[in-house]
Protein backbone atom coordinates (compact mmCIF):
# COMPACT_ATOMS: atom_id res chain seq x y z
CA UNK A 1 0.00 0.00 0.00
CA UNK A 2 2.80 2.29 0.94
CA UNK A 3 4.52 1.39 -2.29
CA UNK A 4 1.43 2.33 -4.28
CA UNK A 5 1.23 5.64 -2.49
CA UNK A 6 4.83 6.34 -3.28
CA UNK A 7 4.39 5.55 -6.92
CA UNK A 8 1.32 7.78 -7.18
CA UNK A 9 3.16 10.66 -5.56
CA UNK A 10 6.16 10.17 -7.79
CA UNK A 11 4.14 9.95 -10.97
CA UNK A 12 2.00 12.96 -10.21
CA UNK A 13 5.06 15.00 -9.40
CA UNK A 14 6.59 13.89 -12.68
CA UNK A 15 3.45 14.78 -14.63
CA UNK A 16 3.32 18.16 -12.92
CA UNK A 17 6.93 18.78 -13.80
CA UNK A 18 6.33 17.96 -17.45
CA UNK A 19 3.25 20.16 -17.55
CA UNK A 20 5.35 22.97 -16.16
CA UNK A 21 8.17 22.47 -18.65
CA UNK A 22 5.95 22.17 -21.74
CA UNK A 23 3.88 25.17 -20.65
CA UNK A 24 7.09 27.18 -20.25
CA UNK A 25 8.22 26.21 -23.74
CA UNK A 26 4.90 27.26 -25.25
CA UNK A 27 4.85 30.50 -23.27
CA UNK A 28 8.38 31.26 -24.40
CA UNK A 29 7.56 30.70 -28.06
CA UNK A 30 4.49 32.86 -27.72
CA UNK A 31 6.51 35.60 -26.09
CA UNK A 32 9.04 35.46 -28.92
CA UNK A 33 6.55 35.48 -31.78
CA UNK A 34 3.87 37.72 -30.28
CA UNK A 35 4.90 40.98 -31.88
CA UNK A 36 5.59 39.41 -35.25
CA UNK A 37 2.14 37.77 -35.25
CA UNK A 38 0.37 41.01 -34.38
CA UNK A 39 2.30 42.73 -37.15
CA UNK A 40 1.38 40.01 -39.67
CA UNK A 41 -2.31 40.28 -38.78
CA UNK A 42 -2.23 44.03 -39.15
CA UNK A 43 -0.47 43.75 -42.50
CA UNK A 44 -2.98 41.23 -43.81
CA UNK A 45 -5.85 43.52 -42.87
CA UNK A 46 -4.11 46.49 -44.41
CA UNK A 47 -3.49 44.58 -47.63
CA UNK A 48 -7.18 43.75 -47.86
CA UNK A 49 -8.10 47.39 -47.30
CA UNK A 50 -5.59 48.59 -49.88
CA UNK A 51 -7.10 46.24 -52.39
CA UNK A 52 -10.47 47.94 -52.19
CA UNK A 53 -9.21 51.51 -51.83
CA UNK A 54 -6.41 52.54 -54.19
CA UNK A 55 -3.50 54.15 -52.41
CA UNK A 56 -3.92 57.48 -54.23
CA UNK A 57 -7.26 57.96 -52.48
CA UNK A 58 -5.84 58.24 -48.99
CA UNK A 59 -2.85 59.31 -46.99
CA UNK A 60 -4.04 58.26 -43.54
CA UNK A 61 -3.54 54.98 -41.71
CA UNK A 62 -6.91 53.44 -42.50
CA UNK A 63 -6.58 50.67 -39.97
CA UNK A 64 -6.69 53.18 -37.15
CA UNK A 65 -9.26 55.50 -38.70
CA UNK A 66 -12.45 53.66 -37.94
CA UNK A 67 -16.03 54.17 -36.91
CA UNK A 68 -17.91 51.61 -34.85
CA UNK A 69 -20.58 49.63 -36.65
CA UNK A 70 -23.05 47.85 -34.36
CA UNK A 71 -24.11 44.35 -35.29
CA UNK A 72 -27.72 45.49 -35.62
CA UNK A 73 -26.97 47.96 -38.42
CA UNK A 74 -29.80 47.22 -40.86
CA UNK A 75 -28.91 45.77 -44.22
CA UNK A 76 -25.34 44.76 -43.50
CA UNK A 77 -26.10 41.35 -41.99
CA UNK A 78 -23.26 41.60 -39.49
CA UNK A 79 -22.90 38.81 -36.95
CA UNK A 80 -21.14 40.96 -34.38
CA UNK A 81 -20.11 44.53 -33.78
CA UNK A 82 -17.69 45.59 -36.46
CA UNK A 83 -16.21 48.82 -37.69
CA UNK A 84 -15.93 50.67 -40.94
CA UNK A 85 -12.72 52.22 -42.16
CA UNK A 86 -12.30 55.74 -43.45
CA UNK A 87 -9.94 56.72 -46.24
CA UNK A 88 -8.94 60.36 -46.01
CA UNK A 89 -6.72 62.58 -48.04
CA UNK A 90 -5.59 65.85 -46.55
CA UNK A 91 -8.17 65.35 -43.83
CA UNK A 92 -11.07 64.94 -46.22
CA UNK A 93 -12.89 61.64 -46.34
CA UNK A 94 -12.46 60.26 -49.84
CA UNK A 95 -13.88 56.77 -49.37
CA UNK A 96 -15.27 54.40 -46.78
CA UNK A 97 -14.78 50.68 -46.48
CA UNK A 98 -17.87 48.91 -45.19
CA UNK A 99 -17.95 45.31 -44.00
CA UNK A 100 -21.00 43.40 -45.14
CA UNK A 101 -21.99 39.77 -44.64
CA UNK A 102 -23.93 37.82 -47.25
CA UNK A 103 -25.76 35.24 -45.21
CA UNK A 104 -27.29 33.63 -48.28
CA UNK A 105 -24.13 32.10 -49.74
CA UNK A 106 -24.10 28.52 -50.95
CA UNK A 107 -22.37 27.27 -47.81
CA UNK A 108 -22.32 29.67 -44.93
CA UNK A 109 -21.62 33.36 -44.66
CA UNK A 110 -19.57 35.27 -47.19
CA UNK A 111 -17.77 38.14 -45.50
CA UNK A 112 -17.09 41.05 -47.79
CA UNK A 113 -15.66 44.51 -47.56
CA UNK A 114 -16.91 47.14 -49.98
CA UNK A 115 -15.02 50.35 -50.66
CA UNK A 116 -17.22 53.28 -51.69
CA UNK A 117 -15.90 56.63 -52.91
CA UNK A 118 -17.36 59.95 -51.88
CA UNK A 119 -19.18 60.19 -55.21
CA UNK A 120 -20.96 56.91 -54.53
CA UNK A 121 -18.92 54.79 -56.93
CA UNK A 122 -17.45 51.50 -55.77
CA UNK A 123 -13.68 51.52 -55.51
CA UNK A 124 -13.43 47.81 -54.86
CA UNK A 125 -15.02 44.71 -53.33
CA UNK A 126 -13.23 41.82 -51.74
CA UNK A 127 -14.28 38.62 -50.03
CA UNK A 128 -12.53 38.30 -46.70
CA UNK A 129 -13.74 34.81 -45.93
CA UNK A 130 -16.08 32.30 -47.49
CA UNK A 131 -16.59 28.58 -47.72
CA UNK A 132 -17.96 28.40 -51.24
CA UNK A 133 -17.38 25.30 -53.35
CA UNK A 134 -13.83 25.17 -54.66
CA UNK A 135 -13.83 25.49 -58.45
CA UNK A 136 -17.35 26.89 -58.63
CA UNK A 137 -18.40 29.43 -56.05
CA UNK A 138 -14.90 30.33 -54.97
CA UNK A 139 -14.50 32.51 -58.04
CA UNK A 140 -15.49 35.40 -55.77
CA UNK A 141 -11.88 35.12 -54.63
CA UNK A 142 -9.73 37.57 -56.59
CA UNK A 143 -6.99 34.93 -56.72
CA UNK A 144 -9.30 32.59 -58.65
CA UNK A 145 -11.08 34.92 -61.04
CA UNK A 146 -11.46 38.58 -61.91
CA UNK A 147 -15.18 38.53 -61.31
CA UNK A 148 -15.10 40.52 -58.07
CA UNK A 149 -13.47 43.41 -59.93
CA UNK A 150 -16.56 43.84 -62.10
CA UNK A 151 -18.06 45.96 -59.30
CA UNK A 152 -15.42 48.63 -59.64
CA UNK A 153 -16.93 51.94 -60.73
CA UNK A 154 -20.50 50.76 -60.23
CA UNK A 155 -22.85 52.81 -58.10
CA UNK A 156 -26.48 52.87 -57.01
CA UNK A 157 -27.60 54.46 -60.28
CA UNK A 158 -25.25 52.43 -62.46
CA UNK A 159 -26.85 50.07 -63.10
CA UNK A 160 -30.29 51.10 -61.78
CA UNK A 161 -31.77 49.05 -58.97
CA UNK A 162 -33.25 46.32 -61.17
CA UNK A 163 -29.88 45.80 -62.81
CA UNK A 164 -28.25 44.90 -59.49
CA UNK A 165 -28.61 41.17 -60.04
CA UNK A 166 -26.92 38.40 -61.95
CA UNK A 167 -27.74 38.03 -65.67
CA UNK A 168 -29.90 35.01 -65.05
CA UNK A 169 -32.17 37.23 -62.93
CA UNK A 170 -32.16 40.02 -65.48
CA UNK A 171 -29.28 41.98 -64.02
CA UNK A 172 -25.95 43.08 -65.43
CA UNK A 173 -23.53 40.94 -63.45
CA UNK A 174 -22.19 37.62 -64.72
CA UNK A 175 -22.96 34.47 -62.82
CA UNK A 176 -20.47 31.59 -62.79
CA UNK A 177 -20.97 28.47 -64.82
CA UNK A 178 -22.64 26.03 -62.48
CA UNK A 179 -22.92 28.47 -59.60
CA UNK A 180 -25.54 31.18 -59.41
CA UNK A 181 -26.22 31.27 -55.70
CA UNK A 182 -22.81 32.65 -54.72
CA UNK A 183 -22.68 35.60 -57.15
CA UNK A 184 -26.33 36.33 -56.45
CA UNK A 185 -25.53 36.65 -52.74
CA UNK A 186 -22.46 38.79 -53.36
CA UNK A 187 -24.26 41.14 -55.75
CA UNK A 188 -27.09 41.59 -53.25
CA UNK A 189 -24.70 42.20 -50.35
CA UNK A 190 -22.68 44.73 -52.32
CA UNK A 191 -25.86 46.56 -53.21
CA UNK A 192 -26.89 46.62 -49.54
CA UNK A 193 -23.53 48.13 -48.63
CA UNK A 194 -24.06 50.85 -51.25
CA UNK A 195 -27.51 51.59 -49.88
CA UNK A 196 -26.06 51.83 -46.39
CA UNK A 197 -23.42 54.31 -47.50
CA UNK A 198 -26.02 56.32 -49.41
CA UNK A 199 -28.24 56.58 -46.34
CA UNK A 200 -25.38 57.61 -44.09
CA UNK A 201 -23.65 59.82 -46.62
CA UNK A 202 -23.77 63.03 -44.63
CA UNK A 203 -22.28 61.46 -41.55
CA UNK A 204 -19.65 59.33 -43.26
CA UNK A 205 -18.34 61.97 -45.59
CA UNK A 206 -18.68 64.80 -43.09
CA UNK A 207 -16.42 67.80 -43.41
CA UNK A 208 -12.97 67.45 -41.84
CA UNK A 209 -12.64 66.87 -38.19
CA UNK A 210 -14.97 64.19 -37.00
CA UNK A 211 -17.44 62.04 -38.73
CA UNK A 212 -20.04 60.93 -36.24
CA UNK A 213 -20.89 57.29 -35.86
CA UNK A 214 -23.70 56.30 -38.16
CA UNK A 215 -25.93 55.01 -35.38
CA UNK A 216 -26.29 58.57 -34.09
CA UNK A 217 -28.82 59.14 -36.83
CA UNK A 218 -32.46 59.18 -35.69
CA UNK A 219 -33.49 57.64 -38.97
CA UNK A 220 -31.24 54.69 -38.26
CA UNK A 221 -32.49 53.57 -34.87
CA UNK A 222 -30.69 50.24 -34.58
CA UNK A 223 -33.40 48.65 -32.50
CA UNK A 224 -34.49 45.17 -33.29
CA UNK A 225 -33.72 43.26 -36.39
CA UNK A 226 -35.82 45.25 -38.80
CA UNK A 227 -35.25 44.48 -42.41
CA UNK A 228 -33.57 47.21 -44.36
CA UNK A 229 -36.12 49.54 -45.90
CA UNK A 230 -34.67 49.79 -49.43
CA UNK A 231 -35.65 46.27 -50.27
CA UNK A 232 -33.24 43.62 -51.41
CA UNK A 233 -31.87 44.60 -54.79
CA UNK A 234 -33.20 41.64 -56.60
CA UNK A 235 -36.91 41.77 -56.10
CA UNK A 236 -36.36 39.32 -58.86
CA UNK A 237 -38.87 38.06 -61.27
Amino acid sequence: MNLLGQSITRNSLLLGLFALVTATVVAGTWQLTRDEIAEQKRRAEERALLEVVPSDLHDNRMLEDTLPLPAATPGLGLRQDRQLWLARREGKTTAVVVPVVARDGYSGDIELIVGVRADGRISGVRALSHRETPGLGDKVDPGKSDWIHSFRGRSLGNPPAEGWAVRKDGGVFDQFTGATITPRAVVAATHRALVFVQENRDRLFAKPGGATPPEASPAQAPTGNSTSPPAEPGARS
Partner: protein
Amino acid sequence: MSTPSYTDIAVNGLWKNNPALVQLLGLCPLLAVTSSVVNALGLAVATTFVLVTSNTTVSLIRSVVPDTVRLPVFVMIIAAAVTGTELLMQAYAYELYQILGIFLPLITTNCVILGRADGFARKQPVLPALSDGLLMGLGFGAVLLVLGALREALGTGRLFADMDLLFGAGAAAWEVVLVQDYQAFLLAILPPGAFIFTGLLIAIKHLIDARIERRRAALRAAPASGSKRVRVTGTIS
Protein backbone atom coordinates in the same frame (compact mmCIF):
# COMPACT_ATOMS: atom_id res chain seq x y z
CA MET B 1 13.68 -4.10 -29.38
CA SER B 2 17.08 -3.74 -30.94
CA THR B 3 18.01 -0.58 -32.73
CA PRO B 4 17.39 -0.97 -36.46
CA SER B 5 19.96 0.27 -38.96
CA TYR B 6 19.47 3.66 -40.59
CA THR B 7 18.76 1.95 -43.89
CA ASP B 8 15.94 0.03 -42.26
CA ILE B 9 14.60 3.23 -40.73
CA ALA B 10 14.66 4.92 -44.12
CA VAL B 11 13.06 2.03 -46.00
CA ASN B 12 10.39 1.74 -43.33
CA GLY B 13 9.54 5.42 -43.23
CA LEU B 14 9.55 6.05 -46.95
CA TRP B 15 8.13 2.82 -48.30
CA LYS B 16 7.65 -0.42 -46.41
CA ASN B 17 5.88 1.06 -43.42
CA ASN B 18 4.81 4.36 -44.97
CA PRO B 19 2.57 6.14 -42.46
CA ALA B 20 0.03 7.27 -45.04
CA LEU B 21 -0.13 4.28 -47.40
CA VAL B 22 0.55 1.35 -45.08
CA GLN B 23 -0.13 2.38 -41.51
CA LEU B 24 -3.00 4.56 -42.78
CA LEU B 25 -2.40 7.04 -39.99
CA GLY B 26 -3.23 10.72 -40.20
CA LEU B 27 -5.87 10.25 -42.87
CA CYS B 28 -7.92 13.25 -41.82
CA PRO B 29 -5.33 15.92 -42.72
CA LEU B 30 -4.15 13.78 -45.62
CA LEU B 31 -7.56 13.87 -47.22
CA ALA B 32 -8.56 17.37 -46.28
CA VAL B 33 -5.48 19.40 -47.11
CA THR B 34 -4.17 17.83 -50.30
CA SER B 35 -6.28 19.82 -52.74
CA SER B 36 -3.17 21.63 -53.97
CA VAL B 37 0.60 21.28 -53.86
CA VAL B 38 1.19 24.33 -51.72
CA ASN B 39 -1.22 23.16 -49.01
CA ALA B 40 0.25 19.68 -49.05
CA LEU B 41 3.78 21.01 -48.76
CA GLY B 42 2.85 23.30 -45.90
CA LEU B 43 1.28 20.51 -43.89
CA ALA B 44 4.10 18.12 -44.76
CA VAL B 45 6.72 20.52 -43.43
CA ALA B 46 4.73 21.22 -40.26
CA THR B 47 4.06 17.53 -39.59
CA THR B 48 7.68 16.54 -40.19
CA PHE B 49 8.90 19.26 -37.87
CA VAL B 50 6.54 18.12 -35.12
CA LEU B 51 7.49 14.46 -35.66
CA VAL B 52 11.20 15.18 -35.35
CA THR B 53 10.74 17.37 -32.28
CA SER B 54 8.46 14.95 -30.47
CA ASN B 55 10.47 11.83 -31.35
CA THR B 56 13.69 13.45 -30.17
CA THR B 57 12.20 14.73 -26.93
CA VAL B 58 10.48 11.45 -26.15
CA SER B 59 13.72 9.57 -26.72
CA LEU B 60 15.62 12.00 -24.48
CA ILE B 61 13.31 11.49 -21.54
CA ARG B 62 12.71 7.78 -22.09
CA SER B 63 14.59 6.69 -18.96
CA VAL B 64 12.85 9.20 -16.69
CA VAL B 65 9.25 8.46 -17.50
CA PRO B 66 7.71 5.23 -16.19
CA ASP B 67 5.39 3.30 -18.51
CA THR B 68 2.30 4.07 -16.43
CA VAL B 69 2.28 7.78 -17.14
CA ARG B 70 4.06 7.82 -20.48
CA LEU B 71 1.03 8.62 -22.62
CA PRO B 72 0.00 11.85 -20.89
CA VAL B 73 3.62 12.96 -20.95
CA PHE B 74 3.91 12.22 -24.68
CA VAL B 75 0.68 14.06 -25.37
CA MET B 76 1.95 17.10 -23.50
CA ILE B 77 5.18 17.07 -25.47
CA ILE B 78 3.36 16.72 -28.79
CA ALA B 79 0.86 19.44 -27.94
CA ALA B 80 3.67 21.80 -27.00
CA ALA B 81 5.54 21.04 -30.24
CA VAL B 82 2.40 21.65 -32.29
CA THR B 83 1.53 24.88 -30.53
CA GLY B 84 5.08 26.11 -31.03
CA THR B 85 4.96 25.24 -34.72
CA GLU B 86 1.62 26.98 -35.07
CA LEU B 87 2.93 30.16 -33.47
CA LEU B 88 6.05 30.15 -35.63
CA MET B 89 4.03 29.61 -38.77
CA GLN B 90 1.66 32.41 -37.82
CA ALA B 91 4.63 34.72 -37.38
CA TYR B 92 6.61 33.80 -40.49
CA ALA B 93 4.16 32.24 -42.97
CA TYR B 94 0.90 33.94 -42.13
CA GLU B 95 -0.98 33.24 -45.39
CA LEU B 96 -0.13 29.59 -45.24
CA TYR B 97 -1.20 29.51 -41.64
CA GLN B 98 -4.57 30.87 -42.72
CA ILE B 99 -4.90 28.29 -45.50
CA LEU B 100 -4.03 25.32 -43.29
CA GLY B 101 -6.35 26.71 -40.65
CA ILE B 102 -7.69 24.10 -38.28
CA PHE B 103 -5.44 21.36 -39.68
CA LEU B 104 -2.40 22.87 -38.06
CA PRO B 105 -3.57 22.45 -34.44
CA LEU B 106 -5.08 19.11 -35.47
CA ILE B 107 -1.58 17.75 -36.08
CA THR B 108 -1.71 17.04 -32.34
CA THR B 109 -4.26 14.34 -33.02
CA ASN B 110 -2.41 12.91 -36.01
CA CYS B 111 -1.89 9.32 -34.92
CA VAL B 112 1.41 9.11 -36.79
CA ILE B 113 3.01 11.27 -34.16
CA LEU B 114 1.83 9.52 -31.00
CA GLY B 115 2.30 6.22 -32.82
CA ARG B 116 5.95 6.87 -33.56
CA ALA B 117 6.57 8.27 -30.08
CA ASP B 118 5.11 5.25 -28.35
CA GLY B 119 6.04 2.60 -30.88
CA PHE B 120 9.57 3.65 -31.64
CA ALA B 121 11.10 6.69 -29.96
CA ARG B 122 10.57 5.65 -26.36
CA LYS B 123 12.63 2.50 -26.82
CA GLN B 124 15.43 3.98 -28.92
CA PRO B 125 18.44 6.26 -28.51
CA VAL B 126 18.15 9.83 -29.65
CA LEU B 127 19.69 9.65 -33.11
CA PRO B 128 17.65 6.74 -34.46
CA ALA B 129 14.53 8.32 -32.96
CA LEU B 130 15.29 11.60 -34.67
CA SER B 131 15.91 9.89 -38.02
CA ASP B 132 12.74 7.88 -37.65
CA GLY B 133 10.80 11.08 -37.08
CA LEU B 134 12.41 12.72 -40.08
CA LEU B 135 11.88 9.78 -42.44
CA MET B 136 8.34 9.03 -41.30
CA GLY B 137 7.64 12.72 -41.85
CA LEU B 138 9.21 12.61 -45.29
CA GLY B 139 7.24 9.48 -46.17
CA PHE B 140 4.02 11.10 -45.03
CA GLY B 141 4.95 14.32 -46.80
CA ALA B 142 5.78 12.55 -50.05
CA VAL B 143 2.32 11.01 -50.16
CA LEU B 144 0.78 14.39 -49.35
CA LEU B 145 2.71 15.97 -52.20
CA VAL B 146 1.85 13.32 -54.77
CA LEU B 147 -1.82 13.52 -53.79
CA GLY B 148 -1.74 17.31 -53.85
CA ALA B 149 -0.12 17.39 -57.29
CA LEU B 150 -2.52 14.80 -58.73
CA ARG B 151 -5.59 16.54 -57.38
CA GLU B 152 -4.45 20.02 -58.35
CA ALA B 153 -3.51 18.96 -61.88
CA LEU B 154 -6.71 17.05 -62.51
CA GLY B 155 -8.96 19.41 -60.63
CA THR B 156 -7.77 22.77 -61.91
CA GLY B 157 -5.50 21.99 -64.87
CA ARG B 158 -2.64 23.80 -63.16
CA LEU B 159 0.29 22.91 -60.94
CA PHE B 160 2.19 24.78 -58.23
CA ALA B 161 -0.34 27.61 -58.00
CA ASP B 162 0.08 30.05 -55.09
CA MET B 163 3.54 28.81 -54.22
CA ASP B 164 4.40 32.37 -53.26
CA LEU B 165 2.54 31.76 -50.01
CA LEU B 166 5.39 29.52 -48.95
CA PHE B 167 8.43 30.79 -50.82
CA GLY B 168 7.88 34.54 -51.12
CA ALA B 169 6.82 36.68 -54.04
CA GLY B 170 9.32 35.21 -56.52
CA ALA B 171 7.59 31.85 -56.44
CA ALA B 172 4.38 33.25 -57.92
CA ALA B 173 5.89 32.55 -61.34
CA TRP B 174 6.26 28.82 -60.64
CA GLU B 175 2.69 28.17 -61.60
CA VAL B 176 2.41 25.83 -64.57
CA VAL B 177 -0.73 25.89 -66.65
CA LEU B 178 -1.11 22.36 -67.97
CA VAL B 179 -4.27 22.90 -69.97
CA GLN B 180 -5.55 26.26 -71.13
CA ASP B 181 -9.18 27.05 -70.29
CA TYR B 182 -9.52 23.87 -68.29
CA GLN B 183 -13.01 23.15 -67.06
CA ALA B 184 -12.48 22.34 -63.39
CA PHE B 185 -12.88 18.64 -62.62
CA LEU B 186 -14.51 19.21 -59.28
CA LEU B 187 -14.46 15.65 -58.04
CA ALA B 188 -10.69 15.72 -57.81
CA ILE B 189 -10.67 18.71 -55.49
CA LEU B 190 -13.56 17.70 -53.26
CA PRO B 191 -13.12 15.12 -50.44
CA PRO B 192 -14.37 12.13 -52.49
CA GLY B 193 -11.49 12.77 -54.90
CA ALA B 194 -9.08 12.53 -51.98
CA PHE B 195 -10.41 9.10 -51.06
CA ILE B 196 -10.31 7.86 -54.64
CA PHE B 197 -6.77 9.04 -55.26
CA THR B 198 -5.49 7.70 -51.95
CA GLY B 199 -7.01 4.35 -52.87
CA LEU B 200 -5.31 4.47 -56.25
CA LEU B 201 -1.96 5.26 -54.66
CA ILE B 202 -2.29 2.32 -52.27
CA ALA B 203 -3.19 0.06 -55.18
CA ILE B 204 -0.15 1.25 -57.14
CA LYS B 205 2.09 0.61 -54.17
CA HIS B 206 0.74 -2.93 -53.90
CA LEU B 207 1.35 -3.49 -57.60
CA ILE B 208 4.95 -2.39 -57.28
CA ASP B 209 5.44 -4.49 -54.15
CA ALA B 210 4.03 -7.53 -55.93
CA ARG B 211 6.33 -6.99 -58.88
CA ILE B 212 9.38 -6.63 -56.65
CA GLU B 213 8.37 -9.75 -54.76
CA ARG B 214 8.01 -11.71 -58.01
CA ARG B 215 11.40 -10.58 -59.25
CA ARG B 216 13.01 -11.47 -55.97
CA ALA B 217 11.37 -14.90 -56.01
CA ALA B 218 12.64 -15.45 -59.55
CA LEU B 219 16.15 -14.48 -58.51
CA ARG B 220 16.04 -16.84 -55.60
CA ALA B 221 14.72 -19.71 -57.68
CA ALA B 222 17.13 -19.30 -60.58
CA PRO B 223 20.48 -20.25 -59.05
CA ALA B 224 19.04 -23.14 -57.12
CA SER B 225 17.67 -24.87 -60.20
CA GLY B 226 20.02 -23.53 -62.85
CA SER B 227 23.38 -23.96 -61.25
CA LYS B 228 25.03 -27.27 -61.74
CA ARG B 229 28.27 -26.51 -60.02
CA VAL B 230 26.92 -26.05 -56.55
CA ARG B 231 27.67 -29.13 -54.58
CA VAL B 232 24.98 -29.82 -52.17
CA THR B 233 23.67 -32.74 -50.34
CA GLY B 234 19.96 -32.76 -50.01
CA THR B 235 17.72 -29.97 -51.16
CA ILE B 236 18.01 -26.27 -50.72
CA SER B 237 14.98 -24.78 -49.23
